[in-house]
């Protein structure tokens, strides 16, 4: 599990996750992606804790998050309300490998664009990874 508050978390981050602002969470961009290794491939669940920002939701309207594991679409989650959310779903064993890191990515269909600097944001990520 990659905790955004963990000082080592940046070593697992592949792309589209911003540096923290002294917080225990981080903003994402369009396709936040992390790499993690599983101890075993069976009975593994993808888990994520994240928050949808109310102000952002006002600009984008409901957004859809697509969870991928090693390029396989695991699930899509529609987020129409702001606030904390938890996602968890079992991952088929043959999508995973115990020797090399697996890639987890979350596609965000619509991004919030900051009116001040034009910077784009997806959602607020607290943790993302596998549970067993």
């Amino acid at each position: 599990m990659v905790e955004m508050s963990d000082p080592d978390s940046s070593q697992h981050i592949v792309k589209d996750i911003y540096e923290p602002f002294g917080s225990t969470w981080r903003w994402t961009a369009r396709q936040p992606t992390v790499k993690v290794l599983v101890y075993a491939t069976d009975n593994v669940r993808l888990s994520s804790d994240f928050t949808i920002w109310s102000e952002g939701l006002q600009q984008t309207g409901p957004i859809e998050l697509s969870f991928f594991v090693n390029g396989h679409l695991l699930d899509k989650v529609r987020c129409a309300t702001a606030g904390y959310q938890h996602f968890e779903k079992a991952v088929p064993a043959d999508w995973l490998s115990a020797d090399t890191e697996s890639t987890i990515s979350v596609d965000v269909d619509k991004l919030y664009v900051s009116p001040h600097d034009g910077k784009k944001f997806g959602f607020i990520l607290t943790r993302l990874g596998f549970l067993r």
Partner: protein
Amino acid sequence: MHAALTVLAILFGWLFTVATAWALGTLLLRKLSLVFYRWEEPLFAFLIGAALLSAIVFVLCAAHLAWKALFLVLGLAIILYALRSGAHKPRGNSFPPLPQRWRWVFVVIFTAFTFIYFINALEPESSPDGMSYHLGVVAKYQRTHGFPRITTDMYASLSEGIELLFLWAFEFGRHSAAALVHFAFFMALVFLILSYARRIGRPVVGIAAALITYLSPVVGLDGTIAYIDVGIAAVLFALFYLLQIWDRDRNPQLLLPIGILAGFSYAVKYTAFLAVPYAIGFIAWKLCRARKPMLRPVLLVSMLALAFILPWMVKSWIEVANPFSPFANRIFPNPYVHISFEDTYRKFMRIYALTSYWQIPWQVTVRGDLTTGLIGPLFLLTPLALLALRFREGRQVLLAGFIFGLPYFTNVGTRFLIPAIPFISLSLALALSGVEWLLLTLVIAHAISCWPNVVQLYCSPAGWRLIKVSPQAAFRIQPQEAYLKGQPAYVLAQMLEDLVPADAKVFVFTQPAASYTSRQMLVGYEGAFNELLQDILWIPMFRDFQPTRILAFQFPQRELRKVRVVQTESVPEGQWSVSELRVFANGHELPRDREWRLTAHPNPWDVQLAFDNGPVTRWRTWQPPAPGMYLEIDFARNQKLDSVIVESSGDTSVTKIKLEGVGDDGKWTTVAGAPNESVRPSRISLRQAATAELKSRGIRYLLITDDNIGANDFQLYSKLWGMTSIAQRGTARLYYIE
């Protein structure tokens, strides 16, 4: 005060070693009533004495009597005896004086370069091979007062004739004393070149050739650190020189030092083995042409040479079951060095990072990065050296240079040219001796182009060369610790010294400065055992190495006494491995029985790894697979079987196997042809299994640097490996296996 004492100890260690060697050599030369020119005698005495002293240290090490006190007493006794015998009183005639102008050229250039060379030699030793293996083995011998049996470091199996002289000096002055001993060989070489040319009546050629050799950047650097290449060049040149004197005088007493130096050449470096056939061939040819009996002289030289060669062969034979270790492993199969390592090593040494051999002339003379070092742009004129063929001396010099240069093609590193450089320098100077102003211009140009500040203007920034010297560090005004802390290899060695218990073993992928730590390191590529550990650590990270390839032989039930899986394919660039071999009857695996006799060809020593139920261990051929290689079980009695399963890995997919068995008739017959193949991916991480295997082999520490394969995996998933990172220095982490 401490700095002054350190420097004094270094100078004592150096001068005491040189003086002992000189005393031994002088005693022998005087005993043989050999008279040379005044300049020649101390030079020959030092080199012949070095061979004798090295042999004495060999005997002391073999007897585990290599104690500092014994060295001191023995050395002083030899020196005092030599002085009492009048060894210090010069003998022989002087050469005619050198031409005035050339003498000044020599003095000015030689003095300037000697200053930087001496400072470099006196500085704390920081050369890659010096810190790691040349002095690494010396430090081990010093700690154990002899030869410990080392089976996990292929460098320790090489002949170490000069390293044993380093040991003598190291006892008193540590690393820098050893480097200065090499510097003494360097000085001897330069003055031998000069003396030889004076002897043949060509002093100008001598000065030019001596300077051309002395100033060459790779020679200057190598000769002032704890390496041995300039040392071997000095020994080979002295051998050539003595053969030339013998050819003129035919004094049979000369055959003794000739035999000693021929044998010592091999004792210093394997690649100098050609000195023996050269010396014997030279003597035989000359005697044959003169219609003189040759058997006795040839036998004498051969026997003396063997006396210096055999101890090294025997040492290797006893320690690692191969007299030529780490080479010739096909002829002398052993469990200590893999054939695959030897093949890879040879292949790399023949090409380094070059893409074409046509790069060599420019690389070795000007750029110096891909072949590690440069000899200087002047050597682009080497083809002109062939003009020396018009002189008798020129032909002799070129022949010797050609022979001693031949091993270069087994290792294209620039420093492997060093044994040929004195001969190239002499022949080039001879070739141009008719145009003295041109020779003088070239020597001065060479001096300018080889000065360190100038070299950096044209060589590659990564070219191995002397960059700058630090008198502060040399005289220990800057403490050694402070000077060396910029060397990552030294920092890692100190980390091990600080954090690893004295009796612990540390696995490393790349060698730290072994001479600066007393901890035992197992370097990934330096021995068969180490390569096995490396394989174990890589298996969890690379799917192709894991036992995912399942090959099943199924056949009507039979009673068999023996079965074996036989390789049927030749794969020049691969290896064959078996992670597990299982036999079944009626759907049940037969439990491994103590009566079973397991064997394999090749690599019978690791056969157990195919029967240990370990997913991260495997029996490997460690050489390219070839038809007829096998893995065999002798059940010791007839056994009912109906299937055999071979668990192999993806990296062996090009190999093909069949199953053979022995039944009641006692003959091998094919039981099954091609097996059914399936893939069974590993579902759990094998990392902890790997570290458990290391632990069971007594290894609790791993030193990993960021550039090592899998460094990121070790760091990020240390918990999955069952390890804790206990320290970090620079880009390296030290892990402890819990």
